[in-house]
């Protein structure tokens, strides 16, 4: 494998993790409906226990996404995390609250009471996807930073954020917000689709279907706005010498120059629409599968056009030449190669996750199980 291929391979893996993460935010989406969708305590418990058996997968995917990004593109890690400080910190805070909320909420002596822990889940359910969407928005809309390796000679910081709000300014960028809202609504749509599948309960099906519809509509509006703008706007291209320049319709060009990625994108979008169709029209409980796979593929393809084909995946608005692309931000060839060998184990990891998922999900969560089992949140 050449160095360039290794960089592209690791960008693919990071993108795949991002895609899987967005799919797995059905946990967050479903948690935003604990209070609005459930009619009583029994139903709230069913929702919490349903997402409670999956939340660690979402959480672990996020952590692994961070770890993989650090290992393969450390300059991004040092630039974005150290720069867009508050966005990442707020994401972390919301995920800390989530991590304990499940285990603690129904335990006697939990100090704050069940409702507070469930509100932690609600906060994470909204803030997590919203802020992740905003952070990812900067991949396409740029951020204010300068990278100067010479600074190390004076003991100064190599990557410096020039925005004084340390990431909060990204929250006010309208197109970052559009992506953020799109992901919030998508996670809620996926959450409702997931619950349709996972809760073995007729009484909640109709409400869940309505929730799918109510969330899918705004999602489609936000997503189409974002996608439409993305395909018609400028992007940051990098040439063989590493010189960065603005290019009209860069992301559209990327799709056209990488037809397989375009195909992934189209299959992804069709998958999401098929999931919605199955749920809303066919009244099927299996809409989560095409919608989940579609989400993964769509996000994967969007990340691929952000980083592949000589594109700057983290454009600098302050100094264009500081923009990050695969070649100037990646790890050494040796490190990427060593980690590539480790990545051979990923299919094995996916296999046992699928096995565990299936083992726990048959026959789905029922009111009877909630009433009888000791092992519940």
């Amino acid at each position, binding site marked *: 494998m050449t160095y360039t291929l290794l960089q592209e391979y690791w960008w693919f893996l990071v993108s795949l993790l991002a895609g899987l993460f967005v799919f797995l935010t059905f946990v967050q989406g479903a948690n935003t409906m604990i209070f609005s969708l459930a009619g009583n305590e029994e139903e709230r418990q069913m929702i919490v226990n349903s997402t409670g058996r999956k939340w*660690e997968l979402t*959480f672990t995917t996020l952590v692994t996404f961070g770890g993989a990004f650090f290992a393969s593109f450390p300059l991004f*890690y*040092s630039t974005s*995390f150290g720069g867009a400080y508050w966005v990442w910190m707020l994401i972390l805070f919301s995920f*800390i609250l989530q*991590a304990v909320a499940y285990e603690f909420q129904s335990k006697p002596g939990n100090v704050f009471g069940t409702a507070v822990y469930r509100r932690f889940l609600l906060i994470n359910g909204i803030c997590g996807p919203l802020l992740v969407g905003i952070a990812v928005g900067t991949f396409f809309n740029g951020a204010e930073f300068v990278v100067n390796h010479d600074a190390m000679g004076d003991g100064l910081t190599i990557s410096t954020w020039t925005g004084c709000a340390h990431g909060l300014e990204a929250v006010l960028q309208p197109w970052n917000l559009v992506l953020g809202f799109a992901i919030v609504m998508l996670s809620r749509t996926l959450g409702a689709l997931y619950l349709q599948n996972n809760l073995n309960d007729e009484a909640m099906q109709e409400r869940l279907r309505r929730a799918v519809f109510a969330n899918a509509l705004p999602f489609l509006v936000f997503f189409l706005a974002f996608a439409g703008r993305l395909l018609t706007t400028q992007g940051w291209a990098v040439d063989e010498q590493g010189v960065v320049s603005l290019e009209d319709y860069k992301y559209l060009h990327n799709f056209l120059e990488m037809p397989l990625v375009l195909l992934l994108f189209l299959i992804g979008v069709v998958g999401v629409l098929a999931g919605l169709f199955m749920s809303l029209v066919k009244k099927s409980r299996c809409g989560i599968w095409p919608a989940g796979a579609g989400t993964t593929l769509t996000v994967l393809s969007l990340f691929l056009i952000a980083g592949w084909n000589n594109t700057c995946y983290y454009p600098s608005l302050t100094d264009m030449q500081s923009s990050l692309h695969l070649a100037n931000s990646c790890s050494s060839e040796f490190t990427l190669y060593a980690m590539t060998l480790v990545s051979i184990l990923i299919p094995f990891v996916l296999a046992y996750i699928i096995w565990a998922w299936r083992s726990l999900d048959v026959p789905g969560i029922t009111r009877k199980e909630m009433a009888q089992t000791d092992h519940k949140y």
Partner: protein
Amino acid sequence: MNELLFLSRFQFALTACYHWLFVPLTLGLGIVMSVMETLYVRSGDDFWKRTAQFWQKLFGINFAVGVATGIILEFEFGTNWSNYSWFVGDIFGAPLAIEGILAFFMESTFIALMFFGWGKISKSAHLASTWLTVIGATISAWWILVANSWMQHPVGMEFNPATVRNEMLDFFAVAFSPTAVIKFSHTVLSGWMTGAVFVIAVSCWYLLKGRNLEMAKRSIKVAAIVGLIGSLGCMGAGDASGVDIAKHQPMKLAAAEGLQKGSCEAPFSIVPGIEIPHMLSFLATHDFNGFVPGIEDITRSGYTSHQGEVVLSGEEKIAEGKLALEAFKRYRQFRNSDPACANQALADFNAHKAYFGYGYLDSSEALVPNVPVVYWSFRLMIALGCFVVLIFLLSLWLAYRKQLEKFPLFHYAALLALPCVYIAGQCGWIVAEVGRQPWAIQGLLPVNAGLSSLDATNVMATTIIFALIFTALLVAEIRIMTRAIKDHHA
């Protein structure tokens, strides 16, 4: 010390200390509960199933906060230590990524099966899930300790002035360095001790209350065996660690001993004024007459190590470091404009690069960590550790004599051992991390050159938020845990 540096260090220390309140119990209690479930599957005795389930419940309460505090540590390298992340990310990131891929998914998948899989999967599949949960946690410890060990003793890499970072040359040297093996053993086995003490203390509380007697007595037996095995291994690894530190971090050892002047007959200080002659020489070199350098040797005069290597003084190293840094700047200045000057600068840099990191320090005094903190933490760790080992021995002896219920004094001692084992663990990390100062990576990058470009007020704000959240969660966890213990009827 400037405010940003202090706060960034404080925040990392706070997160690490909180994280280490939860992780050792996960590692140790995980082993105990897995052994109990194995006993259930082998014997078919429902008693062991109920007992394993009780400890698994406590495991779950503790596990959640460990996960929450763990995620912060990973991201803090980027948020607060931006330069660090680039300067060594090529080496340091890999263990974190591998930890995620190999360990976190294993833990998070199988813990769900462990809690919710009863009755849904076969007995043996459930047992495998329980073991895989704790094995996942242990593999996770392996990789994060590989990363930490690399900070203590960087190997398998070379600095590349063109990319301004260290680049990995030998993955196996990083992943299986003796420092990592020793640190992993010492740390994980101290976790076994923590888990074992926890089980013994809770069981002794039941014995004092005259409740759940059978469960308490049989749990103590399992825990004491796990604890004793952990203790023996932990002590062995601790001894190896002493030799390793003497070789690679002599200042840490000198600080831990408060040794100002080096000697071939270095005594081990029990407390100030009480010493065992030659003992430090033996512990550090496995030779009663081995030379151990003191703080003054390392900072001012230089010395010849036990292995015969001539070591420059701190002052000389800093002078070399300044030359390396100057050459580095020159190289960066001319590398695209004047190849001849750049080559000369590179040659100069290579002549001094071994001390590059020292160039960021102003004086040799900066090389000395906080001696009283390191000195007393070390003593406290050993003293409390010895007390805990005594509890294991007593537990086994009383179990053998079938007299576990008889001595309330023993029960109270076991309860006292619980805070002791936690304090010992915290002290161990204080020795390891405060003793390493001023280095983020030993000899390579001091903490002041690893920071992000942030206003101190931002870090202050997040530190306060962390402190409040973690403290609230800790209080909640302790209350939930004590309530679960009180309410349990075997």
